[in-house]
């Protein structure tokens, strides 16, 4: 088991390094230099060349990548060419904002998605099952940014229940914090509630049809106990999907933070893209990749704990 975990960690780090390399190549292959953003339209070719030389942008690709990777390993993400700020500090400042929205959305998606899925699976073909299927199709179809704009219109502009955007940290008070993340998290969660509900419902229904469940019922186990054991067996694919969803949520937060004017990582990433701020762009995408890779690693490990058959193959 330990060897397997070590192997998975090594392969995850390998994936990260590969993504870092690809990212580095992509940011430098596109047209447009950060010098043009910093020095403006009036800058001469000589000024552009001076800027690129001063910031090491004229060096060959591999030495640039090696230097960057070496710095990142030491926790130094460099200093932005464009803003002059420390990239690691910018990331550390923005990360809690995005994390709070994604974690809240993830919690909503898990609780509602698995809850709806379980109730729907217990009475196949019943009213709740049919309503939840319809709601799931709606949830899968509604674009998150559109839902966000609709929520702003009704909850903020018309009803004045919640602020139209912005972010209040937890230090400003729980109430203010919840107000600020409620609509963005809900907009982000709706799609994943639908996805997790459908997967939970399908997986649990299939498990409940299993021979061992029939045997358990025949042996006199209570319905509650049977459903509990069936749910444990039905969870692995749901956990895998949840882990993927957690990673994807950081991607969707890109749009949600823009709609709700939230100063998180994704806003910083969009600005980094439009301003050709290579170092900030690389730092944030590298972090997103790490979250995605390690969320999947975590899901694998949880599944091995839940499912003895997977442990046996270790």
């Amino acid at each position: 088991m330990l060897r397997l975990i070590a192997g998975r960690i090594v392969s995850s780090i390998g994936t990260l390094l590969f993504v870092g390399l690809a990212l580095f190549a992509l940011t430098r292959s596109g047209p447009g230099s950060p010098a043009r953003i910093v020095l403006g339209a009036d800058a001469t070719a000589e000024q552009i060349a001076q800027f690129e030389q001063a910031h090491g942008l004229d060096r060959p690709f591999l030495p640039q990548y090696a230097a960057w990777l070496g710095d990142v390993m030491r926790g130094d993400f460099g200093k932005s060419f464009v803003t002059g700020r420390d990239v690691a500090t910018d990331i550390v400042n923005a990360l809690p904002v995005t994390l709070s929205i994604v974690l809240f959305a993830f919690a909503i998606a898990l609780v509602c998605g698995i809850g709806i899925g379980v109730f729907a699976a217990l009475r196949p073909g019943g009213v709740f099952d049919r309503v939840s299927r319809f709601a799931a199709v709606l949830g899968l179809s509604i674009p998150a940014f559109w839902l966000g704009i609709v929520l702003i219109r009704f909850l903020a502009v018309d009803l004045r229940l919640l602020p139209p955007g912005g972010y209040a940290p937890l230090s400003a008070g729980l109430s203010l914090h919840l107000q600020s993340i409620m609509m963005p998290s809900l907009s982000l969660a709706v799609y994943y509630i639908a996805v997790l509900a459908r997967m939970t419902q399908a997986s649990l229904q299939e498990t409940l049809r299993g021979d061992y469940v029939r045997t358990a019922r025949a042996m006199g186990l209570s319905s509650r106990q049977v459903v509990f054991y069936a749910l444990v067996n039905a969870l692995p694919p749901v956990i895998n999907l949840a882990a993927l969803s957690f990673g994807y949520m950081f991607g969707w937060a890109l749009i949600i933070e823009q709609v709700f004017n939230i100063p998180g990582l994704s806003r910083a990433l969009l600005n980094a893209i439009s301003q050709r701020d290579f170092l900030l762009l690389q730092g944030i995408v590298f972090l997103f990749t790490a979250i995605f890779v390690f969320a999947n690693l975590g899901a694998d490990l949880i599944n091995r704990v839940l499912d003895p058959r997977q442990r046996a193959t270790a």
Partner: protein
Amino acid sequence: MLTVPTNRRAFLAAAAGGALGGILPASLLHAQPTSGKTLTIVLPSNPITIDPINQLNHDAMVLGQTVFENLVEYDVDGVLKPQLAKALPTISADKKTYTFELRDDVTFHNGKKMTAEDVKYSFDYLLDPANKAARRSLFTRITKVTVLGPLQVQFELSEPYGPWLYFLTKYMGIYPAGSRKEHGDDYFKSRPAGVGTGFGVFEEWKPNDYISFRKNPNYWRKGLPHWDRLVVKMIPEDATRVAYLLTGQVDLISAPPPREFNRLKTMPGITGASRPTLGGALLMYTNNLKAPFDDVNFRKAVSAAIDRKTIGEKVYYGLLEPSAVPAPSRGWWFNAEADKELGFDLDKAKGLLAKSKYATGAEFDLSIQAEPYLLDTKDAAIFVQAQLAKIGIKVNLKVYEFSVLIQQAIRGEHQAALQVFMSPGEPSYIMQVCLTPEQVLSKSTGYNNPEFNQTLAAAFAETEETKLKESYGKLQALAARDAPIGVLGYVHASNLWRQTLQDVKVNQGLTIAPGEIKV
């Protein structure tokens, strides 16, 4: 006495009510942390610097102009006025020496009195190529700055060049002698506390969220500003920017979405206004050195096929003033005859195309900007595509980010590119930058006409408005004859604000002027 519900349903309902009560009221979220009057304004873009000598975005110039001031300024009506100088400069007979008398009641935010030494230091720093100021190229005709007395400073130019005064209003600021060396450039870029003379003192920059300033209590214009704190928020999304205004989270927004502007400004509690800028043009850089724009009749056919009035009224809902020449129709230097020569006439367009090398039609790529700046140029591009199709010209729309599109134009790699171009509102700026050689956007058109260049050089040496009008009129006539660049019109500056504000004036120069607004 407080009673706790014992019934499960009642308990859940009470808990839900309590939770909702804990969340309300939403207005608390944006309560300002300091006491006193706060003015909150919104920009659609994310600034990268507060330093005026490196500022590129006209929206974001509100930041630099809050902290830093200049010898002269544009007022909101676009009239050049003295600011840190007592009066406009005296100019020598050869138009090469400018002398300013400075105000004697101005102090920097660090308490130090402003003198001629500070002015000299500021310009010497800007002009030193080693300091790589993004706006240096506009001022390189200044050869020497001399301190004549504690409050008197003289500028010598290499040749007569009147426009430099106008560029001060946007791209320059006065800071204390020695301050650049003391603090470093990053300080001016992101936290310039103590180094300006303006009505606002830098307080805090929260990246991607807001930049705040507090009132300068020692401001030389007594009684200003009328607020205690100014917060400039950055909200790129149109709908969110509007929602912030409607819910009272902010007081004033710039760049409201054109299609909603007229409806929003009549909503309860909200008002708004717009006015044409004299320097913000929607331009189509037509590359005269590349087919099919290498043919003057083709260029004129394209110009005549575009219905600018409909673009202004229907595409931009009145926020674009039509013009076919590089001059705003409300500018004193506008040449109506030249404008008519290039204006919309479909039959004329067909005739011109028939006379061109491309009589059977042609095809070209039109580069457009992905992210809107002042106006979404994609809207106009689609309209232009449909209009040119009527005379048999096929337009392929290519969308690029700003940094890519502008480099295409600078290098002359494009066939045609559509972009809103902001200038200080000085009449010669666009013509100089795009239509004369060895300028930053010379290759965007590839146009080089000695007669045009000489006429412009003569205008640089002129200060009398009637003679200038003649020179600029001739330049527009030449532009009408050769059609070296496509002009669709001049954009309006527009703002929406809460009716509780007083004395809001939309700035002709686009940048919001918050100093005189009463909260």
